[in-house]
């Protein structure tokens, strides 16, 4: 035990969580992963600790899609947790990711979401960095007529931009504060990397994008994505049209550490006989029919026959294939009780016009106005409000058992437990 490390909130960008878990942050319920204490959604100290131990810790953070920055000088800004970052393609063709901050006094360098620049010229006092992040020039470095300026021994090479580790898999650009985390492909593991390749492993085209702001802790949303059990129950649109029923062939798979997951199903292999769906007891079976069924037209895009595949990459990235609606989502915390979900809606560079039209129609299923998924924008807030005054109470997650492993069938919360297993390990609680 090392009480000195209790807060763990030192401001350094060190990626290493404290060697000894700070027991004051949180006491996990004795039931283990079968319980989730409400405190994790509301406690500002936990949210602060997440910035260091999680987002600046031993994980990879999604920054952008590589197709957004095709030319030298093209840049795209984003955040890692609370830290502004910028991905930029250098004159050598390589993508680099920097903290979006001038080394002089900290002014943000790139203010726009995206653009192109020859160098980083800071707007505040005009210090100039090249695309590799080296400090190239300093306004009035020698002062004026011998007055002012920097000391003789000031070494510009010591004042470059803070560069992060960068790695690319498929269309996705990741960055990390950690020197320890293995390359993205290895960090994902073979099975998880398989689906990344499957969905974004060939040239993609961005065909839409928006940000959805939700009034709940970010973890309530990521749990929702990993909760295969709710998908066929909360989302009536899905079940009524047989898009994704719990009775279809499918599985929930979790990675070795628990944090990544895959949830998939095959709509052409549905067996409702003898389930609660076929006897009409569930709310989801009430009569409801579409006048125009073109929204539901799809083609089987993959030889594996999987029509619905949701993947999470720990802790906050989602890759979605709902029929032919493809998207990458990044979830960013905004304090304890708000988060933003950034969406990239994608197709492939070689899509036919007919395929594009199908994707456009199916885009109605997802996003803030998604016929299937709009409920997910509010369910977290509906939970958040009940947890505020009872930090010591806990949610129950025993569907599919109390442990973490891949499971056939999706009446399971194994993905949720997996998330908390890795979160606890990274957070040291």
């Amino acid at each position, binding site marked *: 035990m090392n009480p000195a490390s209790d807060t763990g909130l030192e401001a350094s960008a060190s990626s290493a969580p404290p060697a000894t878990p700070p027991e004051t942050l949180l006491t996990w319920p004795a039931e283990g992963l079968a319980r989730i204490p409400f405190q994790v959604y509301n406690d500002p100290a936990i949210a602060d600790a997440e910035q260091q131990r999680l987002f600046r810790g031993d994980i990879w953070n999604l920054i952008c899609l590589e197709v957004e920055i095709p030319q030298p000088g093209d840049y795209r800004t984003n955040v890692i947790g609370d830290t502004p970052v910028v991905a930029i393609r250098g004159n050598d063709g390589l993508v680099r990711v920097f903290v979006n901050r001038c080394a002089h006094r900290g002014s943000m360098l790139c203010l726009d979401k995206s653009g192109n620049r020859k160098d980083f010229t800071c707007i505040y006092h005009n210090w100039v960095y090249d695309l590799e992040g080296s400090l190239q020039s300093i306004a009035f470095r020698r002062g004026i007529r011998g007055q002012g300026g920097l000391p003789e021994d000031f070494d510009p090479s010591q004042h470059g931009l803070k560069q992060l580790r960068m790695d690319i898999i498929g269309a996705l650009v990741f960055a990390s504060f950690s020197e320890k985390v293995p390359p993205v492909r290895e960090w994902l593991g073979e099975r998880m990397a398989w689906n990344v390749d499957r969905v974004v492993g060939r040239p993609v085209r961005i065909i839409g994008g928006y940000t959805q702001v939700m009034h709940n802790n970010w973890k309530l949303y990521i749990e929702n994505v990993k909760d295969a059990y709710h998908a066929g129950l909360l989302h009536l649109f899905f079940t009524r049209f047989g898009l994704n029923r719990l009775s279809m062939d499918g599985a929930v798979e979790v990675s070795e550490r628990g944090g990544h997951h895959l949830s998939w199903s095959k709509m052409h292999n549905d067996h409702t006989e003898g389930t609660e769906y076929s006897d009409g007891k569930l709310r989801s079976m009430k009569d409801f029919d*579409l006048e*125009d069924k073109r929204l539901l037209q799809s083609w089987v895009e993959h030889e594996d026959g999987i029509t619905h595949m949701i993947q999470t990459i720990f802790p906050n990235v989602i890759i979605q294939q709902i029929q032919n609606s493809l998207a990458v989502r990044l979830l960013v915390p905004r304090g304890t009780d708000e988060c933003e979900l950034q969406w990239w809606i994608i197709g492939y560079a070689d899509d036919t016009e007919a395929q594009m039209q199908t994707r456009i129609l199916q885009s109605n299923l997802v996003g*803030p106005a998604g016929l299937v998924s709009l409920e997910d924008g509010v369910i977290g807030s509906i939970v958040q409000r009940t947890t505020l005054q009872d930090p010591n109470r806990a949610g129950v997650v025993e569907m599919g058992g109390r442990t973490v492993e891949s499971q056939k069938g999706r009446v399971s919360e194994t993905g949720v437990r997996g998330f908390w297993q890795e979160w606890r390990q990274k957070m040291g609680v």
Partner: protein
Amino acid sequence: MPILTKDNTHLLTPAFQQVITAAAALVADCVGAVDDERFDEWSTFFTDDCRYDITTREARQKGWPIGLMHCAGAAMLRDRIMSMRHANIFEAHHYRHMVSATRLAPGTDRAPEFASGVRVHTNFGVTRIMANGETTFFGSGFFDDLIVATPGGLRFHERTVVLDSSQVDTLIVVPF
């Protein structure tokens, strides 16, 4: 019919005023139906083979074909309402639109006639009022409308709701 003039003298012609007044009335009546929750009426403001989109300023600038909502035909508008009533789950709320004067779309280069379609723009702001009274400014933008004459009266043949912001609070289930 008047031709648009640089010195705005076309504004003074009765024919122009009739067109713009009729277009503005259609826009106002349609948001009135939404704000009053007369949702069965909503699709009747559109032609059967209409196109209705909710998109964003950013998506238009980038040329993205996908916005937030896309309906091809009035049947899809009715399906949206049916889904809202019978399938989707959300907290009760309604909108109040504040609309600007309706104007001819920039670039209009001939006399507006409903027979061949009139393209008009109308700015809006929308507040969202939750059942508990909490009122937030939900969004601003403009309607980009193509209005045509049909035997039943004026209808929207194309409506693009262009939101100024790419950021949506929580969800959109009630149409704009």
